[in-house]
């Protein structure tokens, strides 16, 4: 049974609209990029990173970093690493058990330099073990 020409045109048009609709939906409602999808801009010790920030703070804004440092103090939303780096937990790591003085390896997004408290701020912090 062959379909009428008009029917075919309607069918193809509907198919095109559906495909376009699907892709535009995917584009508009795309997911947030996780820090694991992005390139790591710095990997090393917190002390070396602090030196780099002192040289050029602007270069290191909004980049993904992997740091190894010492836990200086802890609050309910994050902790301070090497006295000058505040790491705010990723939601999945909120109740991580850490102790002051502990050596920790983390991955997070460097937000920038906070002039008010004179410290570096990192969010989406995860503990990594390598």
């Amino acid at each position, binding site marked *: 049974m062959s379909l009428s020409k008009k029917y075919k045109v309607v069918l193809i048009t509907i198919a095109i609209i559906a495909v376009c609709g699907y892709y535009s939906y995917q584009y508009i409602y795309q997911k947030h990029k996780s820090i694991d999808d992005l390139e790591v801009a710095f990997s090393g010790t917190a002390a070396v990173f602090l030196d780099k920030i002192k040289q050029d703070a602007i270069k290191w804004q909004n980049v993904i970093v992997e740091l190894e440092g010492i836990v200086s103090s802890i609050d309910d*939303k994050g902790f301070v690493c090497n006295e000058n780096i505040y790491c705010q937990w990723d939601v999945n790591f909120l109740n991580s058990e850490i102790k002051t003085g502990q050596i920790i390896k983390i991955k997070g997004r460097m937000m920038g330099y906070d002039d*008010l408290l004179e410290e570096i701020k990192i969010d989406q912090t995860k503990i990594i073990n390598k």
Partner: protein
Amino acid sequence: MKKIFILIMFFCSILVSAQKYYTKTGVTEFKASVEAFESVEAKNKSTTAILNTNTGEFAALLFIKSFHFDIALMQEHFNENYMDSDQFSKATFKGEIAAFNLDELTKSDKNFTLKGILTVRGISKEVETIVRLKRIGSKIVLDSEFNVSPQDFNIEIPSIVRKKIAESIHLTLSYELVEKI
């Protein structure tokens, strides 16, 4: 005698220096939604805020890129097209809470007037609003809201989306301050 004097001075200096309350994870929200369109709102959960309880001086700082939208694409457009957040990464506020007195704070909200300069995209504007302050345990809880307009900060909104973004942007602040040791 001299030693006692030095000791007294030492304790006084501790008392004076321990008069700051702060947070590193304050919540700042904005809403620019228009009814019948996709909601335009975002939350920043990493706002730094400091209150000097001796003088009532108040300062806050946030990173524009830390505003989280439900829709990732909206967040991208916000940063790239509207806020130029690569160039202007921070928004800051510096001001004073008038007639602030730590001893007047109780468990229930008390209104104070906050006046100061809000700087967004490198442009400063004077802001005056009411803040609600209360004391819960050792924390000072600060809540406030006020409106700003995108034109105040030279934020251009293309005519194609003009109807989808409110003329006046509603900001909500919610900061739980703890004593700075």
